[in-house]
């Protein structure tokens, strides 16, 4: 079965100007190991490519089992000028949580 980020993590999105940040926080130790190894900035960029120019930076907070992704040029010029219905990009957390992780790599971590 395909594992989504949503199955192992929760998160929230925020905005500053034209930059979005989205967190992914693992529910447990096992989820953290998968998240840390498989949710790469490249994978996040790929999921956001049709919305954001990037780049994507990833920060780790190991004590909290959390990753923070900063996505540049993601909000159509920023909250005040964007044509998007979602001015702040607040729904982008759900886009990140919907990312599907490759089955074989998940299996190799769980083994």
């Amino acid at each position, binding site marked *: 079965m395909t594992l989504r980020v949503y199955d192992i993590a*929760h*998160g*929230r999105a*925020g*905005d*500053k*100007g*034209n*930059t979005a*940040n989205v*967190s992914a*926080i693992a529910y447990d130790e096992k989820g953290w190991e998968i998240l840390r190894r498989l949710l790469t900035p490249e994978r996040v960029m790929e999921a956001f490519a*049709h*919305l954001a120019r990037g780049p994507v*930076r990833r*920060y780790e*907070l190991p*004590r*909290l089992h*959390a990753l*923070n992704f*900063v996505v540049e040029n993601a909000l*159509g010029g*920023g*909250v*005040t*000028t964007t*044509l*998007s*219905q*979602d001015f702040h990009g607040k*729904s*982008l957390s*759900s*886009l990140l949580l919907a990312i599907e992780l490759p089955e074989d790599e998940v299996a190799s971590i769980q083994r």
Partner: protein
Amino acid sequence: MSPRRETVRVGAGAGYAGDRWEPALELVEKGNIDYLVFECLAERTIAREALTRLHNPELGYNPGLVERMRAVLPECLRRGVRIVTNMGAANPLAAARRIRQEAADLGINDVPCAVVLGDDVADTLRRHPELTLLETGDPLETILGRMEAANAYLGADAVAAALASGAPVVVTGRVADPSLFVGPMLYELGWDYDDYAVLASGTVAGHLLECAGQVTGGYFADPGKKNVPDPHRLGFPFADVTRGGAVVLGKPDGSGGRIDRMTCTEQLLYEMHDPTAYITPDCVLDVSDVDFVAEGPDRIRVEGARARKRTPSYKVSVGYRDGYIGEGQMSYGGPNAAARARLAGEIVRERLKLRGFAYAEMRIDYIGMSSLHGAAELRHEPYEVRLRVAARTQDRKAAEAVGGEVETLYTNGPAGGAGDFKAVREILAVQSVLLPRERVITSVALEAAP
């Protein structure tokens, strides 16, 4: 500074201008708080209120000010809970006068209000067109002619100075969100700006509190996955902060919501970029080693925040007029709904072209499929689809035409269009510059009986 007490309890009364007001009253009545802080200024709010002030010099503060004060002021005065708020927006002096008027109408005479001044740096910026806009790298000069407001994000020191007046209410314009909360800590606990450990504690507490319900189970629920008890009567948070910088977050006993490691972690990273360098006017905060430890039901200790010395400049938000956004919506349902919505979108695009309107940017969304995350071609077709056309332009007439053309789909477009909506709004865009600290002079004015 010498400390006035060992511990202070600071509550968050609002996470934004239109927030619920009952939880603030609950904090006052049941939360045993010392300070009630209302953070109510979004990025562009001041520019909008500056326009209001142009039309009426006694306005320009947050429009919800009176209702919010009416709800909490009498009980705050009775219990000695001091209020700190940035609802002064573009006109904090007028806000203070209005609060005093409202108090008088409630039968409470002479409520002194201390007003923080100095965040309005529009005149200073007009003398420095060479400053660089952080977002685009262009000189400030390129937007100076359309500038409506420029406000520096002031720090906790400005709030503490106002508290030193003894006034039960402190009104500000732009102050950095966490700094509104750090102000009372600085004042009560006698903190200094060279003690980075306590500034880190205060700032992380302020950051966690600034969106009120967002740390107590608001903006968190995902039914079946992350459940929140009684979200309709979510309790708002407070922080107990000691002189030594220990921080424990909580919410009123018996209130709805939840506060725990999960809710705190989500809020810690909210609007955070590099976790080792969260810049506020008070310090550069590093939360990369922060942890949350449960102390009891709905009590969370915040550990591990660090900080470095504050930067030599203030961030200034510059609000300026930048054209218009026109928008129209129409719904389609049942068999072939998505195809009819797509045809409708194409018709609107062609009609606007045919009429000779040009747009800097146009966007066609199918609500139910692609309005949030795009990629309509990848989405399942739902039973109902709502077409949304939005476009940006400097020309007001072109902006009005967008909603107008969507409306004409009623009698001219695909079958079964329903539920038209149209709107035009003027864009108040925001960019930022950095201004050296010495160019920002803050002061405190006291509105009180002579």
